[in-house]
């Protein structure tokens, strides 16, 4: 607790203007920045997978399984930052047992459980089932064979009729899954957008903004992973696939950016009482993370670069380089966007008369190291998933 008091005393020294005395402590730390970021990657990756399955975009088939596994790896971690942040993590199960139906946050557990159990796991299982059955019979190393046996869930019927049924059910699940993914992330936006006490958050556009930036980040993540894994395997990535993903990527970035700007312009034009302090916030504490990283590097640069790819006939190598650069820029920009929303919204006082300060500590449950850990963990899980469930070269594109 002494460390907390030291931090708060330091923050108190950096307060500008007037803040309510209880506002010195910034309540939602970097972990709550990581949380919408990770859920966004889940939703985005899943929506990319749905392109192939629901909308029959054949070109993205090479990334279908990778998208699903990426979504799963991040989803398994999504609740961890929340759990780490709670004052009483041991009571978190109360959200499931005695939820307050009026609370947006109480619905998280249900949306999360629904999405994990009823959508993602089921879809992955159906997609891999014939192979799991085959691996369960042919895998020479017994622990891995046992894992596959367990994964079959005791079903080893791979007759053409059974597979046709799998395909139909899988499609139905994706059709349900798409709105579920939208709900999962739109809901995260609602957590912030519905806080009327905070003018920086309170807008009905928040869920939609979160959703489109989630799509951009999820697509960027899968795009980068696909290129990286292809390189590691010594293969050239499928250019038709990359170009198609690039188009959707551009669309998502443009939509997310337009909505963000629409919201900003609306706020400036309405010029309500909180406008002065919000303008100061953007010009001061958020200048680098918002104007520079989120807007210029994270949105405008990818829009220009991906736009160039659409307009000029570039060689494959140049296109791949642009996709890689845009993917990284977008991932960084969207992390900055989450930071600007979550931390930015807590910088200014609800008295609209001043700012508090926040310095991310290195150690501790809510420090930088645990945030980085939460961001690295999905990649370790993904490596495990890829090891068990090889995503490539298994099935021909669906007819």
């Amino acid at each position, binding site marked *: *607790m002494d460390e*907390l*008091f030291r931090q*708060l005393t330091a923050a*108190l020294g950096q307060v500008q203007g*007037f*803040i*309510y*005395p*209880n*506002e*010195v*402590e910034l*309540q*939602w730390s970097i972990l709550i920045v990581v949380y919408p970021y990770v859920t966004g990657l889940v939703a985005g990756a899943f929506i990319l997978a749905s392109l192939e399955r629901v909308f029959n975009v054949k070109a993205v088939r090479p990334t279908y399984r990778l998208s699903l596994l990426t979504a799963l790896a991040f989803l398994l971690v999504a609740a961890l930052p*929340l759990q780490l*942040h*709670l*004052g*009483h*993590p041991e*009571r*978190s199960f*109360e*959200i499931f047992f*005695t*939820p*307050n139906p*009026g*609370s*947006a*946050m*109480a619905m*998280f557990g249900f949306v999360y459980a629904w999405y994990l159990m009823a959508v993602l796991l089921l879809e992955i299982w159906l997609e891999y089932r014939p192979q799991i059955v085959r691996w369960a019979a042919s895998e020479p190393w017994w622990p891995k064979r046992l894992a596959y046996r367990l994964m079959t869930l005791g079903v080893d019927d791979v007759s053409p009729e059974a597979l046709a049924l799998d395909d139909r059910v899988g499609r139905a699940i994706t059709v349900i899954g798409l709105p579920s993914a939208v709900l999962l992330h739109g809901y995260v936006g609602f*957590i912030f957008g519905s*806080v*009327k*006490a*905070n003018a920086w958050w309170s807008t009905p556009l928040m869920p939609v903004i979160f959703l489109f930036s989630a799509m951009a980040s999820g697509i960027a993540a899968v795009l980068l992973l696909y290129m990286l894994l292809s390189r590691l395997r010594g293969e050239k990535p499928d250019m038709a696939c990359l170009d198609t993903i690039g188009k959707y990527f551009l669309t998502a970035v443009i939509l997310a950016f337009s909505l963000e700007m629409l919201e900003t312009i609306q706020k400036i034009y309405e010029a309500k009482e909180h406008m002065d302090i919000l303008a100061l916030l953007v010009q001061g504490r958020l200048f680098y993370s918002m104007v520079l990283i989120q807007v210029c590097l994270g949105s405008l640069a990818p829009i220009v670069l991906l736009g160039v790819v659409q307009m000029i006939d570039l060689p494959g190598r140049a296109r791949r380089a642009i996709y890689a650069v845009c993917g990284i820029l977008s991932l960084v920009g969207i992390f900055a966007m989450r930071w600007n929303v979550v931390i930015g919204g*807590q910088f200014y*006082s*609800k*008295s*609209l*008369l001043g700012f508090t300060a926040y310095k991310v500590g290195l150690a501790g449950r809510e420090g930088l190291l645990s945030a980085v850990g939460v961001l690295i963990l999905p990649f370790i899980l993904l490596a495990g998933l890829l090891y068990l469930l090889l995503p490539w070269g298994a099935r021909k594109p669906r007819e």
Partner: protein
Amino acid sequence: MSRISRRRLLRNAAGAALGWVAASVARRAGAVERFVRESPWIRAKPYWGYAIDLTKCIGCARCVDACKTENDVMRRPFYFRTWIERYVIRRNGGVEVESPNGGLDAFGRPAEPKTILKTFFVPKMCNHCENSPCIQVCPVGASYKTVDGTVQVDRRYCIGCRYCIQACPYGSRYFNPVTRTADKCTLCYHRITKGLRPACVEVCPTGTRIFGDLSDPGSPVSRFIRENAVQVLRPEMGTRPKLVYKGLDREVR
């Protein structure tokens, strides 16, 4: 099933749906007549209310001190169940607000006294809102309203997500680092349920703070509200605070 019977089925279903919509529209149209806001203390007695007469506050912060003592609130300058703000309004329209250690540390003498238009003190605390956003957002129902109208936190139940702190427009809540739960003014619930007044009201030397039963027309708070024009903080939030102020300046947030 033949085509005709399916068509008939659809037609009947559509007709029923249309009828249902029409009936609900007709019912809704009469709703305006029911727009009478009934005070909750008509049915619940007692129903606690609180008033602050800003024309009387001298900023001595005895209330802040008493609150910290009575409720064992940490003596660090980051945790307050009640605090005092001092507003200095300059002739040129400038507004300076201060609350050094919640008012417990001395308010310094304002600079350049000749440029001052007016100064005044504003005690703040939980507004015990009738329509409180903190209760709305609590995922587990640890924040709740008692039958007598106060807003409380069950610290044996709170999971410490801090959503309620974000949702409070008045900055009345804080995160208690000892219990690791949300914390706030209880209106000295342990006292008022025994017929005593809250500690802050008890020690106020000028009668700035007024407490009582809103359901009793003869209570100090009912009389005060009846006899004075009172305002609430941030009415546009729709929280319907049960803490009212007399003499609230337009600059106060």
